[in-house]
């Protein structure tokens, strides 16, 4: 019995997994190996890269200028993740528990922004936050400001743009986690004498942690590598690791150093995520 199940499982699954394995192998794994190989190569002045073992590309990262940019990127990504969590959790909670028959429509609204390209949406903020934009017009109409104020091309605008862009990545996993939640557990908490707040902190929130973890990772990773939003909304005055990597590949024609930065970013992200899952994830999950 058991054997038959296992057999069918492996045959069917192998067939189903073949396309995705091929896809990821061709378009993810092999390019990734190229990047790793390039990162130890030596860039020519004009083109070409001489493969070899040149750890110099990694040593160059220790330039204080580049370290500062990497640290700043992680700081901005962490802040984006935190703001997305603070905004996204109440939203997901509201949709699941108070949305009732509007639940599906509301979660659809969260996804609506994906229908338009990120680039177009980022440009929309340039218009909205500009000197003659609707935000400034409203502030003046209400009488909060006398003239146009600088809302755009600031680090705050970058943070806002990133929060805006990545908020759905936080809300969707939180929604999925909370949706599975058994409401009877809340009633049980209440019956056992816990206040609503206590029930939330000791029952609901811990059970939604997998969603919090998934959402945080989904927001943190693209935020740390972002390079379009800092250019468009930050007036290129907030240089992030993504900008630095792009610059190495195009302007500097230094693919070896660009690859080293990419590998380093990937390793740092992986490390940060493993640390995070270990700290927030399993500990608390098991503790409950």
């Amino acid at each position, binding site marked *: 019995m058991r054997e038959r199940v296992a057999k069918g499982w492996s045959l069917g699954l192998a067939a189903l997994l073949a396309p995705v394995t091929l896809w990821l192998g061709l378009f993810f794994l092999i390019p990734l190996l190229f990047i790793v190989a390039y990162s130890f190569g030596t860039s020519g002045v004009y083109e070409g890269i001489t493969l070899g073992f040149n750890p110099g590309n990694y040593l160059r990262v220790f330039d204080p200028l580049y370290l500062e*940019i990497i640290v700043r990127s992680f700081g901005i990504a962490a802040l984006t993740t935190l703001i997305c969590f603070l905004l996204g959790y109440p939203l997901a909670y509201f949709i699941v528990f108070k949305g009732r028959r509007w639940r599906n429509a509301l979660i659809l609204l969260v996804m609506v922004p994906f229908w338009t390209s990120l*680039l177009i949406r980022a440009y929309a903020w340039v218009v909205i936050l500009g000197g*003659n934009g609707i935000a400034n017009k409203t502030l003046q109409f209400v009488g909060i400001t006398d003239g146009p104020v600088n809302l755009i091309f600031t680090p705050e605008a970058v943070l806002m743009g990133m929060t805006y862009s990545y908020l759905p990545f936080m809300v969707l996993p939180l929604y999925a986690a909370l949706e599975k939640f058994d409401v009877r557990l809340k009633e049980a908490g209440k019956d056992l004498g816990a206040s609503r707040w206590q029930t939330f902190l000791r029952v609901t929130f811990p059970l939604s942690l997998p969603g919090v973890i998934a959402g945080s990772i989904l927001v943190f990773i693209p935020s740390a590598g972002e390079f379009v939003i800092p250019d468009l909304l930050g*007036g*290129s*005055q907030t240089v992030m690791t993504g900008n630095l990597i792009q610059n190495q590949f195009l302007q*500097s*024609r230094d693919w070896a150093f660009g690859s080293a930065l990419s590998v380093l970013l990937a390793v740092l992200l992986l490390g940060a995520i493993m640390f995070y899952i270990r700290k927030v994830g399993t500990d608390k999950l098991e503790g409950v």
Partner: protein
Amino acid sequence: MMKRISRGRFLRTMGAAGVAGSTLSVLACQPNTSAQGGGGGGGGPEEKVLNFYNWADYVAESTVPDFAKQTGIKVTQDFYSSNEDLLAKLQAGGTGYDVIVPSDYMVEIMIKSDVVQKLDRAQIPNAKNVGKEYEGLSYDPNNEYSLPYQWGTTGILYNKKEIGQLPESWDPLWDSEFEGKMSMLNDTRETLGAALYKLGLSVNTKDMAELQRAADELKKQNPLLRGYFDSTEARPLVQNGDLLLGHVFSGDAFLALSENSDLDYVVPKPAATRWTDNMCIPNGAEHPQNAHKLINYILGAKTGAVLSNYTYYNTPNAAALPMIDDALKDLPGYVLPASVFDRLQVIADPGEATREYERLFTEVKSS
């Protein structure tokens, strides 16, 4: 480095920017080429098609249809938004493009990288129309690989009504009176160049001490700036009053001036950039004869004038000059007196120093 699109028509610009900006894909956007015409310059007749790879919105609306009418050659256009994107695509190989329009320093890089081919001047009789000031520039001293397409300057577009007439100087861009109301180009060579000019140094210096001085100037300036923008981004910001001064390419300035008479454009002393975009044929182009025909067509007197009357940039075509619209010629800084023209500098490929330039500009932007 240089990003230049003469008219920021939203969607078209977005399309080009999308390809270039949101992905690093160097393989995207290959034109459909089924043709296998007689390659290599001579040979048999080619299929009547041509793949033209250009900056967005950088040909007159009638150029391509009129060329098709005259020659029967159907032109397919694709667009890029920076010289570096163009180079990356050519180096990836197999792009199928027949005519490209790189800027000066990029022509030099492309020659050194062996991605462009020599032109057959016998097929381009109109090359005689090129004015002598625009021939034999340092990046391609004998015009073996390139012929000029459009040229212009880099200077300051500003709101004359608000701040009065500016002196011919770079100093206003360092004036704390205009704090938060100024922008510089998000372009390594142009912006480091502005600081080098201000210090009286060469835009092509390879002296690290001089470069460091220029970077230090820019670090002083950084807190006063609203940001580093592409020329097309800065233009509307100056036009609608968000900025008082913007470091821009001349075509953007002329477009703004023609729409808003409160504005003015100045080419500062002691020096400023004179840039040239050029027509080249990549190695491996499948329709080199057609490519030569297009280059010859654009260098025609009338067709050259039609082109510049549309782009608002200057023409390197001496025969076209008399047919440039008077309205355009009357704009400040369009027709340059010899005293101004002579102080302009041409940006060259810095070779090994490229990475030092880039590192310093990154340092400036994140200071």
